[in-house]
């Protein structure tokens, strides 16, 4: 674990990615003061942890490594029990806060059931409800959609967006790239105890350049390749009856403006050359490609 500065702007949804064993959960544990770093310090919301835990943690809602509650207490009683340990919470508003939290995660109907009768998805929802028991500045959600059905996953995504809209900052750790891609505004990728890259999601995806794929009738392939090459794109290849070329960006910033060669100019050149343009596609790398490129294809758990 080395020099991890997660920059999570206020109101952002930060996707925290990394292969299994890369240190995501350990980082979260340190941030929450559950584990002391062997050397160095952890800072959360600008405060040192775990020393400032009494001041910082009431502002932080956390779901760490799956939900865990007292099995013999009802969902509601579990929330009440957690709140009873909070020296700063107001017991007079507890009933309303608990009802609201249960309502938000769609657990109101099962609130009186013992926790051990909950399905995995319901347990996960109760974990979210506990994190929402009071207004928070930061939500740390470790794999919040684990075990949820597609409907539940959608609801959680929706909830996360909604929370971010109300000004809360969300740190979302997940191995589901699609999920991160859909909800997160910022992404950090971790591997072997190091933070490899972080930044706004769009910048990360654009940093790797775009690929332009041109489809023309087979007899015009060579001509099209020539036009594309002349327009300034590099690495022009004819593969599977299509012309592929790369347009590398100048520095990590988003948008077509940063491309050396705007794709629009390429398409115009092709048309101008009198070619029958059947397809013109600008491919940006998915988060998955960025992720695999950074962390490797290997299947081994990182040490």
């Amino acid at each position, binding site marked *: 674990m080395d020099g991890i500065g997660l920059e999570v702007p206020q109101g952002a949804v930060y996707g925290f990615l990394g292969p299994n064993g890369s240190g995501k959960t350990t980082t979260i544990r340190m941030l929450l003061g559950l584990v002391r770093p062997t050397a160095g310090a952890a800072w959360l919301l600008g405060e040192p942890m775990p020393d400032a835990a*009494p001041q910082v943690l009431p502002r932080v809602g*956390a779901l760490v490594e799956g939900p865990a509650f007292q099995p013999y207490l009802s969902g509601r009683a579990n929330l009440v029990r957690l709140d009873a340990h*909070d020296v700063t*919470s107001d017991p007079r508003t507890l009933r309303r806060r608990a009802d609201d939290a249960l309502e938000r995660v769609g657990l109101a109907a099962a609130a009186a059931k013992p926790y051990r009768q909950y399905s995995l998805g319901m347990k996960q929802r109760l974990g979210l409800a506990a994190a929402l028991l009071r207004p928070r500045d930061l939500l740390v959600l470790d794999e919040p959609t684990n075990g949820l059905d597609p409907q539940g996953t959608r609801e959680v995504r929706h909830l996360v967006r909604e929370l971010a809209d109300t000004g809360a900052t969300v740190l979302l750790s997940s191995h589901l790239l699609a999920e991160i891609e859909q909800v997160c505004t910022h992404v950090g990728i971790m591997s072997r105890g190091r933070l490899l890259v972080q930044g706004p999601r769009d910048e990360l995806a654009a940093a790797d350049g775009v690929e332009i794929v041109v489809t023309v009738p087979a007899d015009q392939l060579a001509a099209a390749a020539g036009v594309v090459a002349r327009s300034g794109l590099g690495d022009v290849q004819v593969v599977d009856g299509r012309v592929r070329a790369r347009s590398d960006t100048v520095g990590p910033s988003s948008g077509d403006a940063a491309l050396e060669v705007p794709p629009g100019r390429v398409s115009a050149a092709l048309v101008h050359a009198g070619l029958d343009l059947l397809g013109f596609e600008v491919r940006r790398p998915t988060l998955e490609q960025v992720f695999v490129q950074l962390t490797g294809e290997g299947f081994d758990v990182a040490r």
Partner: protein
Amino acid sequence: MSPADSHAPLPAPAEPARRRGAFARTVRAELRLVLGRRRNVVLLIGLALVPLLLGVVLYVTQSGAFAGQGPGFIGRVTGNGLFLVIASLFLCLPFLLPLCIGIASGDAIAGEASAGTLRYLLVVPVGRGRLLVSKAIGALVFAACAVLAVALTGLVAGAALFGVGDVTLLSGTTVSVGDGLLRVAAVVVYVGLSMTGLVAVGLFFSTLTEVPVGAMAATVVVAIVSGVLDQLPQLSAIHGGLLTHHWLDFAEFLRLEPDPGVLVQGLAVQAAWLLVFGSLAWARFTTADVSS
């Protein structure tokens, strides 16, 4: 998130105010958990059955050949129901009470750790010291309930089966029912206080592991090994400091003039165990990594 590289500095909110009565709230929640847990209720019911069973056996056999026999105070029960309380405590002390108390106190922290609920309590956040103290109070209250479960059913069953009369003390002197009741109450309190050292031992073991059964077993083993060592005359030098050595000194209250020296010594040994293992538990729990 180091303070140096945060983009927009977050508005520093006023330090969240600590509410009055917050600790009492925590302790109430803990007691509700400990005393509401079905396993613990079953343990208490099991303990309460001991005097009932003993009373019924003695009642049925009281006109037989074995009447008035038995170790300890059992022979006196048929003559005076109050002695059923003493005899039952005497029977439960070597094993049943330590077992039940070991289960409850060994489970205190380790149970939360194994269920994963400990990490959620700590990020609430609750101070580790505060959590440990509330857990200790929960375990101590359970120990008190365990002793009371034996004592109260013993009293009720004894009174119902054998009646309550003037109490004949060990020295042969007879005192009034009121005095006798006071003495029995003092015995119950002494036995209850005798359990505090064991609770501290259990709490300490509970902070060492995430496997509650391990902590429970280790706690019970300490009580049993202490009892065994107490039997070895070769170790008489350390007998005075053993956890269980003074447990049966409650008999002092059944003498005409209880010797305060003996009683204070017994309580001092418990206080020492409580202090040592309480400190160990504190040292361990306030610094341990919680990774379950």
